[in-house]
């Protein structure tokens, strides 16, 4: 009896999905994480069309953690890999993915290797990728993909839109891009690259009118405009990777705090050690911090963290891709809360 009821629930959810019909178009896809009563999160929809491909491995339970507290934590963490046939985006491709996280669910989105953008014959033919994520209150998304790697002579534009309700919901999403195939001497030899991350919130006011408000827009535009007379490679000041990490919500508040504190603890630029003060004995944590800062220096990682409008926004760049990858992984691992709540797999792309 119970099983039948569950099946009906399941069917209904799939059926009423607002994204159901979109999956019939090329490049369209849809992911819905629903909560089966009482508290079982399920991947109720996962559909995709060429050239997009989605793979959902079996959900894993998060490692032992403090689940005894009152917030009902989801039992299993669902993971979906976002892939494209051929491992990249060919000129003219258009990908449109809709994701929905129902209240009380969480999702880890991953990629398998960098998203390669292949050469276009015509600079005006822009390949596109769009992802719209509806994040319900009390749900959490971790999206730590591999970087986008636009090859020389490419034109690509992507947009990630996160829709929240009443400013609730938790996000930890990263967007980063590299200079191309550096082994082949490519160094930002692209025609055009755009990436836009937007977070919107909707709320219903006293009169029952729905209002939508922009909470965050992080838009990177690399093209020939700007009247600088400086080639793109020089405009990037010798950095091979640029990234933004957007963190928000109660689930990630320890991580937010960690980034802000570590930024605060960075040594002052232009400061000097005159050698007249005795260095205090470092605690293990301080020692790890000092080691990480040393690695940042060697890898040429520069970063900043800002706490704005309820977000913590982290910007980073480094001389080589691996520098940023290692730095990001070290930071998230050292803080530990993502590993505890989502498992090791959430950091797969940072390995």
């Amino acid at each position: 009896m119970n099983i039948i009821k569950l099946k009906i629930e399941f069917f209904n959810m799939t059926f009423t999905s607002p994204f159901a019909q979109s999956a019939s178009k090329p490049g369209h896809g849809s992911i819905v994480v629903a909560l089966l009563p009482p508290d079982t999160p399920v991947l109720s929809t996962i559909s995709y069309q060429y050239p997009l491909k989605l793979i959902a491995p079996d959900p894993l339970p998060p490692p032992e953690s403090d689940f005894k507290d009152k917030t009902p934590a989801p039992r299993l963490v669902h993971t979906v890999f976002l892939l494209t046939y051929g491992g990249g985006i060919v000129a003219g491709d258009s990908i449109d993915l809709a994701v929905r996280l129902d209240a009380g669910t969480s999702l880890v989105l991953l990629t398998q290797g960098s998203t390669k953008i292949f050469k276009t014959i015509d600079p005006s033919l822009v390949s596109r990728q769009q992802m719209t994520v509806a994040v319900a209150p009390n749900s959490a998304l971790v999206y730590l993909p591999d970087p986008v790697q636009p090859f020389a002579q490419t034109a690509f534009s992507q947009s990630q839109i996160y829709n929240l309700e009443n400013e609730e919901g938790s996000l930890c999403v990263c967007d980063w891009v590299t200079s191309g195939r550096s082994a082949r001497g490519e160094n930002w030899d692209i025609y055009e690259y755009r990436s836009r991350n937007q977070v919107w919130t909707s709320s219903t006011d006293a009169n029952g009118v729905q209002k939508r408000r922009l909470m965050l827009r992080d838009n990177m535009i690399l093209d020939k405009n700007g009247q600088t007379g400086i080639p793109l490679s020089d405009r990037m000041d010798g950095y091979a990777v640029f990234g933004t990490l957007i963190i928000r919500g109660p689930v990630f508040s320890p991580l937010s705090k960690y980034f802000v504190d570590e930024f605060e603890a960075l040594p002052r630029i232009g400061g000097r050690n005159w050698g007249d003060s005795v260095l205090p004995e470092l605690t293990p944590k301080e020692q790890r911090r000092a080691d990480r800062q040393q690695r940042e220096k060697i890898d040429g990682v520069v970063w900043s963290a800002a706490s704005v409008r309820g977000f913590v926004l982290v910007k980073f760049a480094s001389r080589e891709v691996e520098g940023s990858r290692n730095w990001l992984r070290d930071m998230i691992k050292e803080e530990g809360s993502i590993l505890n709540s989502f498992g090791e797999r959430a950091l797969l792309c940072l390995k």
Partner: protein
Amino acid sequence: MGTTDSDQQSLEDEIADLEKRLQDAKSRLSPSTAGETLPPHANDAALHALLLLSDSALPLGSFAFSSGLESYLAHHRPLPPSASQVPSFYAFLRLSLSTLASTALPYVLAGYRNPEDIETLDNDFDASTPCTVARRASIAQGRALLTVWDRSFKTQYASSPRTTNGHAETLETTGIAGVEILSSFSTALRTSNHLNAHLAPLWGVVTNVLSVPLRDSAYLFLFSHARTVISAAVRASVMGPYQAQGVLAGAELQKRIRGLVEEGWNVRVEDAGQSVPVMDLWVGRHEKLYSRIFNS
């Protein structure tokens, strides 16, 4: 009678000759006397407002901000330390103008064209400024502009009928509506915790109300930024004041600003964004400088 006739004739000839000479003399004189007759000035009111806004004594406090120059210089220490920082400064100026044009200019244009949207524009600009240091600088100057408007310009512009000028774009919205929009915005600013008063959209609204043509408003917005950065360079000992004026007067800067206004003329605010990603890092890391003379 014959003598009278011939006298008459010679007098007439003399008059004709004198008249011809007078005309000749006048025609020779006329090109150089054009300046004496006052040419009609198309738009005195706009010129006056433009001069007010371009005055470096306009109390916006812009002198306190280097827009990332100080941090940039700290990240690009010359080798050897005695080497000139001027070439490095030129690159920064270009990148800084490009960034301002790609991030803020669309909001200036939108604020001018649709002053009634000021609250949304202010919110969206705030949402699009990811870095606390840049945010602080933009809000400080925006609030200062609003204060100057409230305390100094408002009485003049709220009472006098708006002078019409030839620009279609300024005629679309009436100045009086703009005055009311600014008043209600400045009232709302005191109570709402969502509003910030960023410079770019307010600059658009204020220049609209002041009847400055849109193109001039956009040009001045970029020019003022260039002037602020160049002035910061003088105070950061990158160059001397004469060299700084030379940069400011340069044809290269003129061409660049004109080009940026043309490029950005039809960019929607949704498409405003960072064209020099490393700028966010330089500006954001300003807080990490060991010593600072500027607020940004």
